[in-house]
């Protein structure tokens, strides 16, 4: 019997990040506190940069890897590249000077002497870096997974660190812990559905690999009940991760309670990873069942867009507004999956790439507006920001216009591509709903802009802090990406068009 062959070269990007995460755990355990921060940040940034370099080197690959449990093809490369870029930007925010967003000791009781002592004497734990790296490696595995087992394991590698990271906030720790509890219980609940669904798909297909499932659908004509039940349950698990309605209830709470840098990271990275996995499942594995799943996804997409946009109008907290906007964007992204065409595939990848920059930039700005008690997320206190800090308000306006999909921002390019693809595939209903939802969404984005520029500043100690180079760099990169991809999107679009193919 031959030993299985592991293709280290093309799995390199994932392995580098995983190795760095393990090194990070060792640093946290053995290195003296004084050097930990510098070593942890050094390892994390170096690992993500190296992994990206390796990814660029293997960009022409299109093959199965690790005994066909993974598929490293153009689609995977684009998605892994996006995850690494957004992971890097997220790490920049997390590593922000003074570590203001993170609790010194997550295990200390909020308000206890222990906690005070840890804060005052600077006994800061830095376990958030290895956790972030584990989450990044899970997010890179998730879209590459080519069988149900790898898919499940990578889902957990992505999710488990995020549950913990949601509870690490320094201010308002009870809220943060509550967010972690809600995220964990609902996440574990949905992954149980995901696993049970996988069992039924395996039961019908007789194989856990996507190739095997695809073949069995062709052979059986897609009429089997087990397969449909399994796919329905699997869909529940996936839709929870992308926060589509009616499985969106965790999103606003978790986005609000988590430390803002973690929210930025998770908003961009989990969306890319989860939609990446969804693309591979619906396009490749169960593409033959399209007449069964398309009507359901159309309904879910329309409901998601409606709930995301309508409820966002009533929100008073900036992070909750952005959470509902993330839900609405999930609805828009689902139209790309519904299209089930090469256009739809390209459009989804372009949308994910542009959306990630804009959303990280938005949350990066939220970390800047503070008072003595920490970040100010109450929308009313953002009034008049345009008069006090025109530069910050201006950049925030750019990001909001990007989220709304106004022309000359990258959001427009993504939306245009995805709605065109859905229209060409003949799904007019979802396009009409999408355009209507975009119009309603524009209302609450513009309401925030109006509030920043046309109301008088409130004098209650709200101010914009001067950030360190890391946050400035993040915001600058995101703003430039939002603007450049809006004005001159051709290079990105053609690069993604030429890469995005599945390995057969």
């Amino acid at each position, binding site marked *: 019997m031959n030993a299985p062959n592991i293709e280290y070269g093309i799995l390199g990007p994932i392995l580098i990040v995983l190795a760095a995460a393990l090194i990070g755990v060792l640093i946290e355990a053995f290195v003296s506190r004084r050097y930990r921060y510098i070593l942890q940040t050094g390892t994390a940034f170096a690992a993500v940069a190296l992994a990206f370099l390796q990814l660029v080197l293997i960009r022409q690959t299109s093959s199965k890897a690790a005994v066909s449990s993974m598929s490293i093809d153009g689609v995977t490369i684009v998605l892994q590249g996006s995850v690494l870029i957004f992971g890097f930007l997220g790490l920049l925010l997390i590593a922000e000077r003074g570590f203001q967003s993170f609790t010194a000791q*997550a*295990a200390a*009781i*909020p308000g206890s002497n222990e906690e005070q002592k840890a804060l005052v004497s600077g006994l800061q734990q830095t376990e958030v870096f290895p956790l972030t790296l584990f989450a990044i490696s899970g997010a890179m595995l998730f879209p590459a997974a080519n069988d*149900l*087992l790898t898919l*499940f*394991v990578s889902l*957990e590698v992505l999710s*488990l660190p995020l*549950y*913990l990271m949601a*509870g690490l906030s320094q201010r308002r*720790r*009870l*809220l943060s*812990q*509550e*967010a*972690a*509890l*809600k995220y*964990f*219980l609902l996440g*574990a*609940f949905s992954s*149980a*559905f995901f*696993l*049970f669904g*996988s*069992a*039924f798909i*395996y*039961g019908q297909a*007789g*194989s*856990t690999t996507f190739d095997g499932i695809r073949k069995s659908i062709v052979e059986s004509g897609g009429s089997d009940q087990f397969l449909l039940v399994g796919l329905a349950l699997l869909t529940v698990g996936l839709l929870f991760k992308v926060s589509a309605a009616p499985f969106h209830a965790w999103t*606003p*709470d978790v986005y*609000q*309670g988590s430390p803002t840098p973690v929210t930025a990271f998770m908003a961009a990275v989990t969306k890319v990873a989860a939609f990446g996995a969804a693309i591979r499942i619906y396009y490749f594995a169960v593409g033959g069942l399209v007449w069964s799943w398309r009507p359901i996804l159309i309904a879910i997409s329309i409901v998601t867009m409606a709930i995301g946009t309508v409820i966002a109008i*009533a*929100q*008073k907290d900036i992070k*909750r507004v952005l959470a509902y906007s993330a839900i609405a964007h999930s609805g828009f992204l689902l139209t790309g999956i519904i299209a089930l065409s090469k256009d739809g595939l390209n459009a989804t990848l372009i949308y994910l790439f542009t959306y990630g920059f804009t959303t990280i930039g938005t949350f990066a700005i939220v970390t800047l507006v503070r008072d003595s008690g920490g970040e100010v997320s109450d929308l009313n206190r953002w009034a008049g920001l345009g008069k006090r800090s025109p530069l910050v308000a201006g950049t925030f306006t750019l990001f909001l216009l990007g989220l709304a999909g106004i022309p000359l921002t990258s959001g427009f390019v993504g939306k245009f591509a995805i709605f065109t693809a859905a229209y060409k595939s003949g799904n007019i209903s979802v396009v009409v709903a999408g355009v209507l939802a975009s119009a309603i969404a524009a209302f609450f984005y513009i309401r925030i802009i109006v509030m920043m520029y046309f109301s008088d500043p409130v004098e209650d100690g709200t101010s914009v802090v001067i950030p360190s180079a890391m946050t400035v760099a993040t915001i600058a990169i995101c703003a430039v990406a939002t603007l450049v991809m809006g004005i001159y999107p051709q290079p990105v679009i053609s690069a993604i068009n030429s890469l995005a193919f599945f390995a057969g």
Partner: protein
Amino acid sequence: MNPMNYIYLSCILFSLGAAGVLLRRNAIVVFMCIELMLNAANLAFVTFSRMNGTLDGQIVAFFTMVVAACEVVVGLAIIVTIYRSRRSASVDDARLLRL
């Protein structure tokens, strides 16, 4: 014995677990119900493995046990922290995050 019976059993266990998650109030009990759901999935995997005559399902069951163990570590850490700061592990008390 007809292996389908094990599938029925796993469906019953899964439904019991899901009902428990929705009905119980204590975070630890909710979490135990989620573990029950994972084990129901394991039973389904092993049974399908027997019905299909392939070993994949049994291997998945092993991985599920490992993942469930990891989930216990993370889950108990979160639940114990929240219990220590509030003196309660009821999921109804966790309601600071509201509109």
